[in-house]
């Protein structure tokens, strides 16, 4: 029984603690049994895949990474390998690690709520869902030569030649991308003053930088799909 001084007066806090044994341990034990039975049941009926002996001279077509990396492999369609395969996953990992230090909203600590942290929840859910959408496309909708096939289409080698792609002129690309980050950083700070003030300069810059990179990655994909743009910025050293 704990009594805490509140503004409204004395509020009694119920001691809601229960014995771990058996309340929690029994559930854990049951969960372990269900998982074991489920895995063994599935393993009895479904065989793990095994193809022919590896042959460096004969590439699989399509050659696919394990499914949990197929989102990144799908991103290869839209980006060079240095971004899709190295920098993007690094940014995702660093971004995930930074979340607790960027989100300084004290509400919603230890319970489900959307109302009290709309920005955080919607941003995270968007990224999480998008990751799995890319995985789905890479797993189910990509056939030989990574060509796109709808689920009801058979995989063939007879698919239409993709439309030719072009790069944006370098000055335009630099202005577009530079403008995207400058406006993206400045506009919310001016319009949503309290959002900016609550976070402070460093948190705000990191949060918005990560958010803009996530959104920018999606926008680049739209540019490719809608306008056949190969690179926004094309230079002899690096292409984005």
């Amino acid at each position, binding site marked *: 029984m704990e009594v805490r001084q509140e503004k409204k007066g004395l509020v009694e806090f119920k001691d809601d603690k*229960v014995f*771990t044994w058996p309340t929690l341990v029994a559930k854990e034990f049951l969960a372990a049994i269900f998982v074991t039975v489920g895995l063994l049941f599935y393993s009895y009926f479904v065989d793990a895949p095994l193809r022919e002996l590896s042959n460096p001279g004969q590439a699989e077509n399509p050659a*696919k990474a*394990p499914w949990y990396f197929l989102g990144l492999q799908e991103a290869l369609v839209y980006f060079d390998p*240095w971004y899709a395969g190295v920098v993007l996953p690094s940014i995702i*990992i660093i971004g995930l*690690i930074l979340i607790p230090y960027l989100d300084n909203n004290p509400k919603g600590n230890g319970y489900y709520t959307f109302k009290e942290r709309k920005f955080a929840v919607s941003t995270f859910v968007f990224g999480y869902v998008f990751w799995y959408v890319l995985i789905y496309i890479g797993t189910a909708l990509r056939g030989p030569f990574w060509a796109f096939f709808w689920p009801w289409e058979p995989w063939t080698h007879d698919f239409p030649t993709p439309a030719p792609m072009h790069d944006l002129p370098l000055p335009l690309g630099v202005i577009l991308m530079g403008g995207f980050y400058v406006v993206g950083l400045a506009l919310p700070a001016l319009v949503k003053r309290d959002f900016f003030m609550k976070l402070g300069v460093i948190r705000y810059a990191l949060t918005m930088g990560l958010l803009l990179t996530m959104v920018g990655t999606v926008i680049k994909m739209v540019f490719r799909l809608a306008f056949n743009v190969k690179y926004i910025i094309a230079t002899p050293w690096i292409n984005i």
Partner: protein
Amino acid sequence: MKLVPDLLKKITDNEIWKSVFRHGYTDTPRNRALQIISNVWLHLHPAKVREHGTKLRFTWCMGGITFFIFLFETITGILLMFYYVPDVNRAYADIVDLMYVVPFGRFLRNSHRWGAHAMVITVSIHMFRVFLTGSYKPPRQFNWVVGVILLVLTFLLSFTGYLLPWDQLGYWAITVGTNMARATPFLGHEGPFAYILGMRADNDVRFALLGGTTIDAPALLRAYVWHCIAIPVIASALMMVHFWRVRKDGGISGPL
């Protein structure tokens, strides 16, 4: 009808029982607490927990299930190690033997494989739940960081295991995966700015991962050692920190 209770009492109320379990059997609050506190495995838990933390609708049990699948994979993995040798001349044949010759070998390999997929799924759902409940907020910020590293290690555990059957599926999946390393800025020989550090195919970061310029015997051995020893050891160490910090940061998160 007194037979069963009498027998139960005979079994549980004697010196041998007490020497093993260190406390009495009768259902008293004291023994319920001792059941947790005086047991080396269970004392990971506190003797009492807040009730919402035992609810499936709050935790989804996904963290616990992920840990359990890790144990499941350890056991099935050790059994597989009895039959599998990471040698390019043998590896594939060993897997075929497991599938067709070894008693229960197919069942063993299947359950290890599907368990690995399940673990990737459960750990990512666990992260989703922890985010939705805001459980990374103070004082639990650092435990989220440990959790993110454990998530990455789960991916790497599964990824290193993918090559071991030495079949076309694993070989080309690892080819695709490790070719990415070639494009690492500065450190991969096809990446941007690689010329600054003088990167070539035989000295870049992909070479370090594979132990060669192509996926061959050294790559298979490296995948095996990372998969069976290095990553499980690192992951176990971090899991200890992860679970210990759950306790130290005030137990399972919940409304204040």
